[in-house]
């Protein structure tokens, strides 16, 4: 490989690509060519950088200068200044909201400073479509070590001792799972990578696969060696075409290099991976439903009284782990148990459930300054993630709650900000680790509405196989709808709680077993908000439109908007009257409270009371 003086690492994660980062890459290349720097500077497309809110992103290495929110017209100037004259461009650098000072180096930015990269160890550093980049970063060394120097039992012992627990949400100790799969009777055995990431707002698995697909493959090779499998499947959801494409490239490259296939590293160990596409059902992220889907049957879960490690895919022993878990495995093998157990909470030397070790990737979204993907050590507090790494709530609004664990998780209120993030503590607080979605809410969010939002999702995604999930979530949603429509009663809250416990206790799979969590946690931490909706028929956050009364400030309407009439034209009920240049008004009896007027008024003349 030819050495370059500088590398421009252009983020080609999905977020940046949709903000034209590929055109920016092209612009870089053209400009560099024009300036005659083609021999000195290389442009590399990397996987997701993580700081999605600042995209499109380019990092100039080896200095680690971070440029954000790039536009094509910035590129010639940037190339001339930085790459030709050696003067970094401050105006394209990151500025923290509170300090107004440019931060040139990526690692000095708070968002990156607080993170610890294990599963995402190669993010932004390699071209995901080039296996040499991965190998250059010590890739496939772990699998080489395992295959040439270790026995399967040693591998399992190591993973067990590391205390690694399933990153897909359940938190089942990975080593214990591998061991039972190895011991289970039946041939052949299968390993599966669950990349059917379906939680709204979660994109950890996608980023790992898009940014570093080989780490997943390497983890699977190690897992296959440990459990004694020669056949693996990666179940990628249909909505991740880029992830699938990069996986196909990675698999082909690995096969070509002899890192997958019949005779890996010349040891005679045989393992190959195939990709299966999900068809968009959330429930297929559940292991038994996923296996049914891989088999070609309808993706519906079954009772897990007989474990999938014994009777999984095609009734054979099957070891299924999440993308992030697989990606973490090579790091543990290379850096050792002591390093891994030094990160995180609790003690796993006796009991594999005794603590949460290592790091966890979270996708931080919602009302937060630094939207993006973060990997933090277990045991970090919510406050550190949200305010230090995440940069706090924008526009000076008040933090209200954080929703963790996706639609299966729960809402945690401000008083729990100092909660240490690990499997046990989150579960105790009524939420769960889940796959790592984190949605931040501020004072403008109505908690009843948010609970309704997540329940709408699970209700819609319920496969309908078992009665509690099918019927229970439907009725819960109906009750929440009643409450947000101002038709709720006190008894509704009791019924809602009863239903929640019923659905959790009786459902067939974890989808139903956790679907009421958003409702239960909001009832636990924000009961007052429900009561206001029921008692006063008011939504404090003004989100529940049926409870809002829309009026027009005549002063603003005339002085600022000159009676523009947009609201009158847009109102589907013709409930707004007025003439040009004169103040408009709402006929309350005709108003259906759709809120269109509020959305279209550019002058804030429409008010909610």
């Amino acid at each position, binding site marked *: 490989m030819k050495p370059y003086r500088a590398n421009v690492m252009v983020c080609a994660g999905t977020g940046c690509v949709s903000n034209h980062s590929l055109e920016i890459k092209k612009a870089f290349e053209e400009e560099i060519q024009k300036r005659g720097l083609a021999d000195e500077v290389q442009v590399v497309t990397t996987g997701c950088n993580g700081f999605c809110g600042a995209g499109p992103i380019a990092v100039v290495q080896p200095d680690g200068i971070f440029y954000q929110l790039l536009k094509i017209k910035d590129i010639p100037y940037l190339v001339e200044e930085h790459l030709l004259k050696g003067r970094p461009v401050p105006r394209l650098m990151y500025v923290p909201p509170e300090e107004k000072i440019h931060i040139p180096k990526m690692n000095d930015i708070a968002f990156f400073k607080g993170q610890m990269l294990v599963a995402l160890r190669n993010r932004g550093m390699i071209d995901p479509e080039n296996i040499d980049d991965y190998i250059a970063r010590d890739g496939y060394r772990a699998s080489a070590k395992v295959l040439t120097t270790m026995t399967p039992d040693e591998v399992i012992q190591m993973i067990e001792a590391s205390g690694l627990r399933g990153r897909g949400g359940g938190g089942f100790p990975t080593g214990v799972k591998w061991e039972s799969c190895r011991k289970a009777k039946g041939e052949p055995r299968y390993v599966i990578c669950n990349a059917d990431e379906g939680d709204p707002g979660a994109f950890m698995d996608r980023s790992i696969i898009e940014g570093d697909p080989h780490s997943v493959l390497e983890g699977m090779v190690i897992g296959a060696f440990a459990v004694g499998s020669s056949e693996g499947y990666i179940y990628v959801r249909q909505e991740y075409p880029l992830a699938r494409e990069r996986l196909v490239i990675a698999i082909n490259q690995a096969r070509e290099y002899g890192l997958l296939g019949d005779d890996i590293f010349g040891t005679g160990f045989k393992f190959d991976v195939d990709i299966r596409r999900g068809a968009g059902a959330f429930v297929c992220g559940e292991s038994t439903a996923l296996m049914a889907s891989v088999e070609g049957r309808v993706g519906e879960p079954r009772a897990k009284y007989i474990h999938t490690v014994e009777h999984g895919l095609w009734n054979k022993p099957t070891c299924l782990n999440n993308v992030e878990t697989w990606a973490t495995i090579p790091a543990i093998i290379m850096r050792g148990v002591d390093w891994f157990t030094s990160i995180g909470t609790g003690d796993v030397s006796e009991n594999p459930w005794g603590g949460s070790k290592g790091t966890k990737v979270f996708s931080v979204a919602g009302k937060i300054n630094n939207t993006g993907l973060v990997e933090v050590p277990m045991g970090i507090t919510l406050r550190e993630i949200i305010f230090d790494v995440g940069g706090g709530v924008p526009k000076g609004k008040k933090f209200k709650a954080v929703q963790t664990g996706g639609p299966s998780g729960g809402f945690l209120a401000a008083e729990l900000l100092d909660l240490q993030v690990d499997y046990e503590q989150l579960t105790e607080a009524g939420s769960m680790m889940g796959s790592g979605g984190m949605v931040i809410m501020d004072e403008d969010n109505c908690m009843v509405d948010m609970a309704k939002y997540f329940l709408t999702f699970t209700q819609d*995604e*319920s496969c*309908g196989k*078992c009665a509690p999930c099918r019927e229970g979530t439907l*009725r819960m949603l109906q009750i929440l709808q009643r409450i947000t429509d101002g038709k709720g009663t006190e008894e509704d809250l009791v*019924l809602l709680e009863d239903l929640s416990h019923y659905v959790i206790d*009786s459902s*067939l799979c974890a989808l139903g077993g956790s679907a009421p969590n958003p409702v239960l946690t909001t009832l636990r931490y924000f009961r007052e908000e429900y009561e206001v909706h029921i008692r006063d028929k008011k939504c404090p956050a003004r989100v529940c439109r049926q409870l809002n009364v829309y009026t027009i400030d005549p002063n603003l309407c005339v002085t600022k908007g000159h009676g523009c009439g947009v609201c009158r034209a847009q109102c589907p009920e013709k409930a707004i009257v007025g003439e040009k240049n004169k103040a408009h008004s709402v006929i309350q009896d005709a108003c259906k409270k759709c809120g269109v007027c509020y959305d279209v008024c550019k002058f804030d003349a429409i008010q909610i009371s």
Partner: protein
Amino acid sequence: MISIEIDGKQIEVEEETTILNAANALDIKIPTLCYNELIEPYAVCRICVVEVIRRKRTRLVTACNYPLRESVKVRTNSERVLKLRRMNLELLMARAPAAKIIQEMAAEMGLETTRFPIENPKESCILCGLCVQMCQDVVGAYAIGFADRGSKREVSTPYERTPETCILCGACAQVCPTGHIRMTDAEERIIHSKLSLGPNAAITIPFRQAIPNVPRIHAEHCIHFKTGECMLCSKVCPKDCIHYDDKDEIEEFEIGAVIVATGFDDFDPTPMKQLGYGRYPNILTGAEFEQMNNAGSPTGGKIVMENGEEPRSVAILHCIGSRDENYHKYCSRVCCMYALKFAHLVKEKSNAEVYQLYVDMRAFGKGYEEFYQRILDEGVNVIRGKGTEIVPNRSGAGDGALLVRCEDTLIGKFREIPVDMVVLCSALEARSDATDLARKLNISAGADGWFIESHPKLGPVSTTTEGIYLAGVCQGPKDIPDTVAQGSAAAAQAMKMLAQGQILMDAAYAEIAEEFCSGCRICNGLCPYNAISFDETKKVSNVNSAMCKACGTCVAACPTGAIAARHFTDEQIYAQIEGILV
């Protein structure tokens, strides 16, 4: 074996036994909706949720499919379990308000109404999935399945069209706990011509007194023969008696005598269009009516119409196909008396009015005339005149949906009698294959197909072929006492011959001189007694001397003169002629 405690009661069970089976063994009832012992537990209704306590940890599991692997305590009726069950029923009541079983279960739990809004008051499907599992996993037809998901989930056929793969087995309707699935063509309707209820069962004992009295599989109805799946019967049979590959077999016996007792065919009145049999409902043949009256019939021996109601009036028509120039000229001999018996049965079992339409009343046997008198005393309307036509009673006048037209020859008037049901006393006729059999056995059959005995007075059971005897209706219409008498006689004749151990042969029979036989086989076809066979290895014909009757046909036909009749050789004949002339 592991020991389990369920609701305080102890039991030892095999490992992997489900809680439901263990509870059943203890007579503890756990309610179920989606469970059927013939189908792998689907565990979706969740009504059987129970508490399992293991090392002080309580878990909620479904009893139907939770396999017991270690010593645990189970509670099937704790407050928590009952609360969940009540909520479950309340939700199902809202979903399927028309499902009776849910209402009953809810009432048992003390629930009267549901707190949830009812969207469709007529809905009765609870989505338990039994029908789908039955169709897919057991029957293997894949004619129904689930469509859509979540609360929009429903049982449906592919693209909501009539599925081509449906084999009309009715298994889905059979397992449906709420009666949501029904067979539209078979609602408790009695199909008289087949005398079966609803979809035809693939395994039946033909009728109660059938011999042998064992069930048999009808391949044309059996799911296994259509899809290769199912085999539920073999799963439930404790003695492994079910054989799917059983086939008809041909066995060969060496026997010394044959008694032909092949019986008769029932005359099919369908071609007599004027009688409307097969076109209008509630017109039965005598055999069908008799089967309906059997206590083992689908009607349980009751006389009912297709709609399940009792008829208000019944007409019994004599001489259908008998004594009829167009069909059979002979008298079937048994109809008069069974018709009288039917009249008696109708009178005994129902309040219906009975009309007997006869041509001549032939009550010839012992006690028969007295029985006829008894029928008259019971108030049966006896009309002398042949029923000529049956039509629907469109005017609706009188007690009957059908009109029977006849000429009452005693009063010399044409009559129309309204009745609800008609019994056609159809003729006995020779079996359709009687002439084939006659040829095989080398016996003779008359123009009507009845086998001909060797002598109408002196040999009523024997035939022209030695060792072959006749018994019963195959020889001509007769009733049960006559049949029994003839059967006994035939048996005695056969026994007499068998007891001798040998038969006395006639000295005269044909012989073939092998050295002159050209193997032309002309004689083979000519022998009226099938006594000549062809020896393929020697390429010559042989005469079976025991079968030969010395008729001489072959002798006359043999072109080479190889055949000679013993004691009637040419030389002997010539010598005799010479003796006469000299």
